[in-house]
């Protein structure tokens, strides 16, 4: 069973609908009790960093999530701000992140603007996996996903980068460190490509 964490942020029902269509068992977990039996976990997110961290703390699920992921090694997939929460800190806020990946979240450099690019990074962009299989199985060629963000995930260890996207220079659009996965884009809002990625996560 995949648990989709409902801490009041992110489109939990869109994930649940996709897994229902795929015939893959998934549930929405809104309490520590519901999260406890999960084999895999999705941590969705839309919004600002501190707001997301605060909501997760207030949900009463943060400790159980830590126990599941850090203690028991369950696989977790962070989405958008949910990915950014996996880092130690963010330029967007003052609260500490979960710190499961040696990384920080940085604001896109303003020099992007002088290059004629716009901020936020909004819309459909290419995602290039650095290895075949894993989360991006079947998505090695021509995979595109929807992005909506002004801050990006900057891992300190190069080997944690799972996929790259170019926006006036490359940034990590997918990351992995052991059982901890994250994607900056919204697979739940990226049609066939997103559905494939969510299926891949279920099958890991």
């Amino acid at each position, binding site marked *: 069973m995949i648990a989709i964490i409902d801490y009041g*942020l*992110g489109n*939990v029902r*869109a994930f649940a609908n996709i897994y229902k269509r795929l015939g893959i068992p998934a549930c929405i977990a809104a309490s520590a009790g519901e999260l406890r039996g999960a084999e895999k976990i999705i941590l969705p997110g*839309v*919004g600002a960093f501190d707001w997301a961290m605060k909501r997760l703390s207030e949900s009463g699920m943060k400790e159980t999530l830590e126990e599941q992921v850090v203690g028991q090694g369950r696989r977790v997939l962070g989405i958008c701000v949910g990915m950014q929460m996996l880092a130690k800190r963010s330029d967007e806020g003052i609260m500490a992140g979960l710190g499961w990946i040696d990384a920080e979240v940085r604001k896109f450099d303003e020099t992007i603007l002088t290059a004629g690019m716009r901020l936020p990074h*909004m819309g*459909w*962009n290419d995602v290039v996996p650095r290895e075949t299989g894993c989360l991006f199985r079947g998505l090695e060629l021509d995979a595109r996903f929807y992005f*909506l963000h002004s801050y990006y995930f900057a891992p300190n260890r190069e080997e944690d980068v799972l996929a790259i996207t170019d926006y006036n220079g490359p940034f990590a659009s997918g990351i992995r460190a052991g059982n901890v996965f994250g994607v900056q884009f919204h697979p739940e809002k990226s049609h066939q490509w997103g559905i494939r990625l969510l299926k891949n996560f279920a099958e890991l």
Partner: protein
Amino acid sequence: MRPRIIPCLLVKDGGLVKTIRFGSPKYVGDPINAVRIFNEKEVDELMVLDIDATAQNREPDYVLIRNLAAECRMPLCYGGGVKSAEQIQSIVSLGVEKVAISSAAVEDPSLVSDAARKVGSQSVIVVMDVKGDVSSGYEVRTRNGSRSTGKSPVRFAEELERLGAGEIVVNSIDNDGVMKGYDLSLARSVREAVSMPITVLGGAGSLGDIAGLISALGVVGAAAGSLFVFKGVYRAVLINYPGSKEKEGLYMKVLGK
């Protein structure tokens, strides 16, 4: 990055309508059913604007928003009746990626910065309804176009950028539902004034109009109502959207990629 081609749906009395110059609403179908069709067509993004909420001074319809968000397999921008940062937080919590404010952003610009602090700039969208044309000059209007503000779209756009808005939707009132092409000079002036993404709405009557917009302005959002809900000169209701090959062909032609 690719341009975004965005159907814009208007909600009135719980049903979808399409207007002409912000008047004469014609019923075109059920919102959830339309979302399902647009899912199948793999649209880039969807915009749903409730045109009753502010006019009737009521809260956004959270049940409808929740159902739309769950059904959408593409990013959703919701607007209509949004007056406070708390409402914006509630709507984001329901699973909506982008929340549009319009009248409230003009009447209380601090709402934009307040909301951007709380939910992040990327989710704060301002729909700027603009009256006028290149010869008469342009003015931002509120309350479904009925109220004059004296604000110039370019100055207002610059102010929105300072306040931290994530995107501006430039909506030409005079071109709404007319299907004779976008107001390119209005769109260009706003695009040049800000460094955030913009989406242009009002006037698209064919894919050629969208190609013309992208050709003139580069990568922007191209939104349309009538084009994606009507077919033919008699405006028969038929939800439609270009297929992926057609879309790629269009980008290849105007952007060379």
